[in-house]
């Protein structure tokens, strides 16, 4: 090796070492960066990542509380819970839903109804992570699926609590039903500040008592802190808070009375509300036909839904609460007490009834239902024979706004405030109402002619069967009004303590006892020989006060006579009846409507008699009371 070569070599080596030093420096700097990062993560932000790791690890699983029971006033269970296995699919974890369902149906039988219901639930509940394809599996089905479960990722058997209504249709319109929580329910839950409490809940009260007392029945959701792995599988429970069961509801409804009343309707459609006048407690709440709320519990399949929804009998229609009908002659006792209280009529004042009423200067005749009239009629007789002419005159003699203000006190034209949602207000006309109701100025004016038919509960008047029962209960209770309520008291399942729903009256109408007594005695005579409901009242062992009514379904021309036999069943008049008993110390007041039942006396009044006989005397009807379809005319 020459010197020059050696020198070159030395220079190259120095250069190489310099490069190596640069590389070593880069290694140091890079490791420094890593160390800085570790310090940042593990020292400076340790707590943040610690929390993140805990959040990863621990999942809070809600534990659903037992829903409160619903019992009748005697402790008969009307709604209870049962535990059942359901086969549920998590759509987000299943790639091909149709293929999975097809494969599932080879293991567990899945009916077309169930497939349709699943499809419907899927469109309605997009956010849900688990939807039932089949509910109430038998033990054998559970075992068969369990053996094949490995083939179905995203499909699980779950034990769930279901609502069950042991009496099916009985009181269905009062109880309502449970259904799956949908988007609208979620909005309501959030608005009510109940979101946290509903984390583990997927069913909610949709109608009736179930809906109105949802938060009493629901209970308080418990929780378990569960350690989970990355797949969300629970490893072990770290701690848990037990759920608190919902409160039980004891109803005012008497299940036996309810059953007898429902049967008394036979095949007729209609509604009956029975109220205890001294408390406002609803003893029976009938809307016929009813429906079986059990079909809604698992999510109703589209076919059953269509059957219920499209039936001409409208079984889902709550007639007691939302059906508004002209009150007809059942309006007369309230008109009568108004006339007496306002001094428009005295007990002695009599009219000579020619069978029609004419306004001065007009030729139009407002007909009485009885051709030729009732002769000399005073207030007592006007109720007993249901004289129209008497009340045409009284209505004309009373300013419509005065009439409106007085009769509103009996609850007409406004919601009663019953503890079931969706109530209709009915209609009690006034000048203000007419001005708002119509557009053309000449229609907005109140004419004397408008007042005439108001007197007999026709014209603009509309009332729900519930309102009729409420007004009757107020009258029976001498003007002291209690809000109608189905729930009697709420029982705390933890402490057993009872909370009464309605201890205080909402209103006290100042009525003179003698005028009340006069109207009541006239109503009592309605069910006696000579009265319009004498047949229904025959042999009653208690004071049976009532008033019949008829509401027209089709208008009758001026010179035409309504012939029940000639009109199709659906166009026949609605039969109405209000009653209370015993007359001297009323324990029960009813409002009854029978759709297309014809006269109140023949169809509606016997239903009241059957209900009263059971409620007051414990007497069961001999035969299922099926009212005759077409009765002989004559009464009313």
């Amino acid at each position, binding site marked *: 090796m020459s010197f020059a070569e050696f020198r070159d070599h030395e220079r190259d080596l120095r250069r190489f070492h310099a*490069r190596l030093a640069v*590389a070593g420096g880069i290694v140091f700097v890079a*490791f420094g960066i890593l160390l800085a990062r*570790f310090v940042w993560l*593990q020292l400076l932000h340790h707590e943040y990542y*610690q929390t993140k*790791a805990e959040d*990863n690890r621990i999942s809070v699983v809600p534990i659903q509380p037992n829903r409160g029971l619903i019992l009748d006033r005697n402790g008969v269970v009307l709604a209870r819970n049962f535990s059942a296995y359901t086969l549920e699919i998590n759509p987000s974890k299943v790639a091909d839903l149709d293929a999975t369902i097809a494969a599932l149906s080879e293991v567990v039988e899945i009916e077309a109804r169930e497939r349709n219901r699943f499809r419907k639930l899927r469109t309605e509940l997009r956010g849900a992570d688990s939807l039932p394809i089949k509910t109430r599996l038998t033990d054998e089905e559970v075992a068969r699926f369990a053996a094949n479960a490995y083939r179905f990722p995203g499909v699980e058997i779950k034990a769930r609590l279901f609502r069950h209504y042991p009496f099916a249709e009985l009181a269905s319109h009062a109880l309502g039903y449970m259904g799956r929580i949908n988007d609208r329910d979620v909005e309501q839950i959030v608005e009510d500040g109940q979101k946290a409490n509903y984390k583990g809940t997927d069913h909610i009260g949709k109608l009736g008592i179930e809906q109105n007392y949802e938060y009493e029945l629901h209970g308080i959701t418990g929780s378990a802190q569960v350690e*989970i792995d990355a797949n969300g599988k629970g490893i072990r429970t770290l701690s848990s808070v037990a759920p608190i069961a919902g409160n039980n509801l004891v109803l005012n409804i008497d299940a036996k009375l309810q059953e007898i009343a429902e049967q008394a309707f036979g095949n007729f459609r209609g509604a009956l509300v029975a109220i205890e006048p001294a408390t406002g407690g609803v003893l029976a709440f009938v809307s016929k036909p009813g429906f079986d709320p059990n079909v809604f519990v698992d999510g109703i399949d589209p076919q059953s839904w269509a059957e219920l929804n499209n039936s001409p009998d409208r079984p889902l229609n709550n007639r007691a609460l939302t059906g508004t009908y002209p009150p007809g002659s059942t309006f007369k006792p309230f008109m009568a007490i108004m006339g007496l209280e306002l001094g428009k009529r005295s007990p002695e004042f009599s009219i000579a009834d020619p069978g029609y009423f004419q306004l001065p200067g007009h030729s139009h005749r407002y007909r009485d239902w009885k051709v030729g009239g009732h002769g000399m009629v005073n207030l007592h007789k006007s109720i007993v024979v249901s004289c129209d002419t008497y009340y045409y005159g009284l209505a004309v003699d009373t300013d419509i706004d005065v009439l409106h203000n007085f009769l509103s006190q009996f609850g007409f034209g406004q919601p009663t405030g019953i503890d079931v949602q969706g109530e209709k207000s009915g209609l009690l006309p006034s000048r203000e109402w007419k001005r708002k109701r119509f557009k053309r100025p000449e229609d907005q004016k109140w004419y004397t002619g408008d007042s005439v038919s108001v007197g007999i509960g026709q014209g603009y008047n509309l009332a729900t069967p519930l309102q009729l029962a409420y007004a009757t209960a107020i009258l029976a209770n001498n003007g002291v009004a209690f809000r109608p309520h189905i729930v009697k008291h709420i029982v705390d399942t933890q402490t057993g303590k009872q909370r009464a729903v309605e201890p205080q009256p909402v209103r006290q109408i100042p009525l003179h006892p003698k005028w009340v007594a006069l109207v009541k005695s006239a109503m009592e005579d309605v069910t006696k020989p000579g009265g319009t409901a004498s047949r229904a009242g025959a042999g009653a062992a208690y004071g049976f006060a009532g008033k019949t009514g008829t509401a027209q379904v089709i208008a009758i021309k001026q010179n035409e006579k309504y012939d029940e036999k000639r009109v199709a069943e659906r166009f026949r008049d609605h039969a109405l009846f209000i009653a209370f008993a015993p007359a001297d110390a009323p324990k029960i007041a009813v409002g009854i409507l029978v759709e297309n039942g014809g006269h109140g006396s023949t169809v509606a009044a016997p239903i009241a008699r059957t209900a009263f006989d059971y409620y007051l005397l414990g007497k069961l009807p001999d035969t299922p009371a099926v009212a005759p379809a077409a009765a002989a005319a004559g009464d009313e």
Partner: protein
Amino acid sequence: MFARLLQRFTGNIDSALMFIATMLLALGLFTLYSAANEEISRLVAQGINIAVALTCMWIAAQIPPQTLMRFALPIYLAGVALLVAVDLFGEIVNGSQRWLHIGVTRFQPSEIMKIAMPLMLAWYFDRREGSVRVRDFIIATALLAIPAGLIMKQPDLGTSMLVLAAGFYVIFLAGLPWKIILGMLVAIGAATPVFWSMLHDYQQQRILTLIDPTTDPLGAGYHIIQSTIAVGSGGVQGKGWLEGTQTHLEFIPERTTDFIFAVYSEEFGLIGNGILLLLYLALIGRGLMVSAGAANFFGRLLAGAISLSFFTYVFVNMGMVSGILPVVGVPLPLISYGGTALVTLFVGIGILMSINKHRKLVQT
């Protein structure tokens, strides 16, 4: 007699490198036991891997650098040929074509390139020693680009990057002029915005997710988010061996292989990380010392490149797990589970030992 036999057997083994490697292997086995949910079978498998790898190291340590030089070109050419074969007949696993079947087993030819690449370039520059020109750097770059491109095509970003880095280290140590390095940096800086604007929206989005994983927490970002949580939640002292919740509840994906550092870091904390960094620093430092003292240009370049490759592994892997570098498939040297990487690494260590052993023999 026995002592001489032992001397002959261990003569080429560098005790410093061996000590550091043993420490790292031990830490690796402890961590693997935890990461594999205390399954002994995984430890046994890794034990076999280690035995094979140590044997390879011993063999590599016995081969004098002169012999290595002779084989540099053939190994390189064979490696490139195998990469082409992979491209044509390779088996596709998880969407990547990396594996080649030979008889009973399969292996990744790209792995050979991690050694073959620096070997080839060191041989090339050694031949040109004293008269290295710009032309040589261009040739070297071409020699580097061919296998790197083939590996990138598989696609295997991690290995391709390691091969590129190993080759680049040789070129750098061979004296790549600073002007060119500076020019390259400027050119890359200037080209990036142009290149970026040429990409489709979805391609840009994918790169952005790579940079900021929180934009895709359940997809591409999941690995990084979970491993960062594991590291951060470990704190200063760590949660303790076998106590890592992120590990044992399976929140860390690929926790025995590329993400094993998350397991280590969660259970041994900042202190453990410091110890690990020191061990790697010692390994790299020892390698650089071997390089500095090597007998010839070839040995210097090869030892330097191999040592700096170790650094690349460590930095990319730890950077990825702790969330400052994008996710690329690079194992943590001597800790991650897997035979192939272990064999490659120990062959590298064996070469270092050989170069170290022969430093005086050539010097006159």
